C-alpha cells in the first residue's frame, strides 16, 4: 500500500514537473502557453490521427526502455541503445536483401525472420560491449557509447555499399514491398501491430524478471555483485545474458521500425530512440510495466510536440527543445523522488 502510494506521489510530482518545464519552455520562446498546450493535446490523443502518431512513437520507446532497464537491473549501464537500435535495422535490412528481394518464399516466416535478424543485430552489438567489459575490463558506459559511433558509420557504409538500393542513387536501401511489412490498422496511418508486440514483450520481461529464477538472479547480481558471488551465482554469465537480452530488445525496436514504419534504412534511420530509452527506463523505475507506462507517456509528448511545432512560428526546432526539456524534467523528478521517498524503488 505504502509503495503504491509513494509511486503514485512520484508519478504525480513527475507529471507536474513536466508541465512546469513545458510551460516554462513556451514562455521562454514567446509561444502562447494555452494554444501550445492545446496543440500538444490535439497532436497526441485528440483523435485517431493523433493516437496513431502516439502509438508509432511509443513502440520503439517501450522497447529501448526495456532494453536499458534489463541491463541496468543487472548493473550493466548500457548507454548503447542507439547503436543497438541501428544494428537491429541493419540486421533486418540485410536479411531482407538476402531473402525478400530475391523473392525467396519464406511465406509467413518472413516477418518473424526479419525481427529475429534485428534482435541478433542488436545482441551482437551489446555482446561486444559486454565481452569487452567482462574479459578486458572496458567500462560498459564507455564501450557502449563508442559502439554507438561505430554503428552510425556502419549504417552509412551499408547504405552506400552492400545494402544500397538497386538504382545506386541515394544512400538508402530499397523499400520493402508493402506485403512484407507489419500489418497496419488502416492505409492512411503508420500505426501498426508493432505496438502490440512491444506490450507483449514488456509483460514477458516483467514475468521473466520477477517470476523466474533467472530474472531473480539477474536482479541479485545488479543489487549486490558480492552477495551474488557468495551465493554461487555466476555473475559474469548473468551480466552477459542481460546485455544480450538488452541489445536484442533495442535491436527489435530497430527491426520494428524497419518492418513497421520506414520499410527502408537511410541516413536518419534512428531518431535518438536508443538514447531516449534511458529516460523512459528511469521514469518507469526500471520496472517493465512502469516502462510500458512511461514509454506511452513519452510517445504522447513527442507526438504532441510535433503538432505544436507545426502550428507555431518557431517551427520544428522547438520539438527538440520541448523534448529535451521533458527528458530533463523526468530525470529531475526521479532525483527528487529518490531523496524524498527513498523506498520508492517499487517491486511488485
Amino acid at each position: 500500500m505504502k509503495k503504491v502510494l509513494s509511486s503514485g506521489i512520484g508519478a504525480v510530482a513527475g507529471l507536474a514537473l513536466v508541465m512546469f518545464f513545458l510551460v516554462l519552455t513556451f514562455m521562454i520562446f514567446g509561444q502562447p502557453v494555452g494554444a501550445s498546450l492545446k496543440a500538444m493535446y490535439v497532436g497526441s490523443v485528440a483523435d485517431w490521427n493523433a493516437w496513431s502518431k502516439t502509438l508509432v512513437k511509443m513502440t520503439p520507446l517501450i522497447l529501448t526502455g526495456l532494453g536499458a532497464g534489463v541491463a541496468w537491473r543487472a548493473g550493466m549501464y548500457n548507454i548503447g541503445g542507439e547503436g543497438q537500435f541501428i544494428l537491429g535495422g541493419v540486421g533486418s535490412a540485410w536479411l531482407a536483401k538476402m531473402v525478400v528481394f530475391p523473392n525467396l518464399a519464406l511465406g509467413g516466416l518472413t516477418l518473424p525472420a526479419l525481427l529475429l535478424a534485428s534482435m541478433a543485430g542488436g545482441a551482437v552489438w551489446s555482446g561486444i560491449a559486454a565481452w569487452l567489459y567482462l574479459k578486458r575490463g572496458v567500462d560498459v558506459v564507455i564501450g557502449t557509447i563508442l559502439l554507438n559511433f561505430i554503428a552510425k558509420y556502419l549504417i552509412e557504409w551499408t547504405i552506400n555499399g552492400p545494402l544500397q538500393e538497386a538504382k545506386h542513387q541515394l544512400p538508402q536501401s530499397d523499400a520493402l514491398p508493402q506485403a512484407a511489412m507489419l500489418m497496419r490498422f488502416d492505409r492512411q496511418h503508420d500505426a501498426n501491430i508493432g505496438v502490440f508486440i512491444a506490450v507483449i514483450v514488456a509483460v514477458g520481461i516483467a514475468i521473466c524478471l520477477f517470476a523466474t529464477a533467472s530474472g531473480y538472479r539477474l536482479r541479485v547480481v545488479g543489487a549486490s555483485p558480492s552477495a551474488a558471488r557468495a551465493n554461487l551465482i555466476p555473475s559474469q554469465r548473468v551480466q552477459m545474458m542481460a546485455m544480450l537480452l538488452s541489445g536484442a530488445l533495442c535491436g527489435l525496436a530497430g527491426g520494428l521500425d524497419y518492418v513497421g514504419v520506414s520499410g527502408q534504412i537511410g541516413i536518419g534511420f534512428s531518431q535518438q530512440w536508443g538514447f531516449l530509452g534511458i529516460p523512459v527506463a528511469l521514469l518507469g523505475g526500471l520496472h517493465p510495466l512502469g516502462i510500458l507506462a512511461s514509454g506511452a507517456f513519452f510517445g504522447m509528448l513527442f507526438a504532441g510536440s510535433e503538432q505544436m511545432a507545426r502550428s507555431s512560428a518557431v517551427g520544428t526546432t522547438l520539438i527538440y527543445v520541448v523534448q529535451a526539456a521533458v527528458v530533463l524534467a523526468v530525470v529531475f523528478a526521479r532525483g527528487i523522488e529518490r531523496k524524498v521517498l527513498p523506498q520508492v524503488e517499487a517491486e511488485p
Partner: protein
Amino acid sequence: MLEVKGVSKHFGALCALDHVSATFLPGRIHAVLGENGAGKSTLMSVLAGFLVPEQGDVVFEGTSIPGGRPAECQRLGIEMIHQHFTLVPAFTAEENLALARTSQLVSKVDPRSQSLEALEIAAKLGWDIPRNQRTSELPVGVQQRLEILKALSGSAKVLIFDEPTAVLSPEEAEDLFRVMRTLRDEGRILILIAHKLSEVLSVADEVTVLRRGINVASAPITDVTAQILAEWMVGDLPPMHTEKRANRGAARVRATGMSVLGDRGETAIRDVKFEIRAGEIYGFGGVDGNGQIELAEALVGLRRPIRQDSLAVETDRDIGYIPQDRQHDGLALELSVRENLLLTGVRDHRLRRGPFLRLRKIQEWSRKLIQKFSIKTEGPDQLVKSLSGGNQQKIVVSRVFDQVPEVIIAVNPTRGLDIKATHFVHAQLLSARERGAAIALISTDLDELTQLSDRLAFLSRGELVEGEGSLALLGEGSPS
C-alpha cells in the same frame, strides 16, 4: 598531559566505548592494544576530536578539548597519522608538505619555501625525501613519512599513530620506531594503536588494553609479558573443552595439505591439514587477515585450492555459508527480506516450477522463516537495508539453516551483534551440530570459539596451529 575521563560512545546498539579512562603522559610512548572491534579506533577518533563522546571528557593540559572539531584540536597540537593516507597522489612530495602549511583556500603558494621546515625536520630525523617526485610513485613507507612530517610541521604535542606498521616492511617498521623514540625524547605524547603484541613490547613504554569497549588494564610495559597482554586482550580463558563427543560421525570435510591463493596472488593459506566430522564444530581462531576469508571461500567453493585434490567436501546438499561481512557478501541491501531469504531458497525445488518461481509459495515460506527465527520486520516486502544489524544477520542465518545443510561454514557469525542475537546464532549452530552437521566456525572471538568448538586451531599467516600454546600467536598475525 592528556586525560580521558569516563568516556562512553555507542553506535546503535553496539557499545564501542564503555566508561573508558586513561592517562597519556609527555615523553612516553603509549600503546593502545586490542582486537579488532575492541574500540581502539573509536577512542582515537574521540581524542583527535572527530567524534563527540556521549559521556565523559577529554582533558588536554588542563582544559577540555573541543570535541567534534578536529581542526581546532589540531591547533591545540593533537595530530593524528592516519592508516589511510591523506596525501594528494598527483602532487609532488614538496607540494604535499606545503599543503599542510597552506591555511587558506586562496593564498600564495610557494611549495619550495613552505616545505622547507618540514624537510629540515626530515633531515634531522635522518630521512631523505625525494621532494620533486610525484607522491603516487613513492613507496608506502615514504608516503607515511610525508604523513608524519605533515603532522610535525605544526606545533604537534600529541601524535596519534593509527596502526602505522600495517603497511610497512619489518625494516621500515624498525625505522619508524626509532623516529618515534626520538619524537618521544623531545617531550611529546605518542600514542600507538596496535594489535600486534611484539611491536607493542618492543616500542611502547606504557600499554592500555581495550576489550569490547572496556579499558581492561593499563600498565608500564616492564610489568607485563606477552602472555599477560594476550589474556587481557581476549579475556579469561575457560578451560579448553577437550571432551571427545560420542556422536561424531564420518569426516565430511578433509583438507590434506591445502594451499589457497589470496586476491593479490599471495599464498593466503599454506599447506593446512584438518578434517571436520559430522556432528562437530571445528573452531578456527586467529587475528583477522591471516587467511580466514580465503579458507572460508575455499571450503565453500568460491576459491580453488592450488591442488584440486587437497580438499574434499562430502555432502549431497548445498554448503551453508554465513559470510563474514553480511552487508557486503551476505545480503543485497537494496532488495527485500523475501528476496534475500531466497538467495538459498532459489535452488530449492519446492519453491520452483521449472524455470519459474512459485511466488505465492515463496511468500508463505518467507513469512514462516520470519516467524520461526523471530526476525523483526514489517514483512517480507521490507527492504533489508532498513533492518537492524542483528535482524539482517538473522536473515542470513535463517536462510542457511532452513536448507538443513550437512556442512556449514560460518565466519564471525556474531560480529557486531548484541547479546541476544549472539545467543540466537550460537543456539542455531549448536542445534545444527546436534543433528549431525559438520561446522567450520571461523572467528576472531576467542570466547565464542572456546564455548562452541569441539576442536580448536589457530590461523597464523595462513598456517594452522593446533592446541594450547597457540594462544601466544594471537598478536603475531599480519594486520587486517
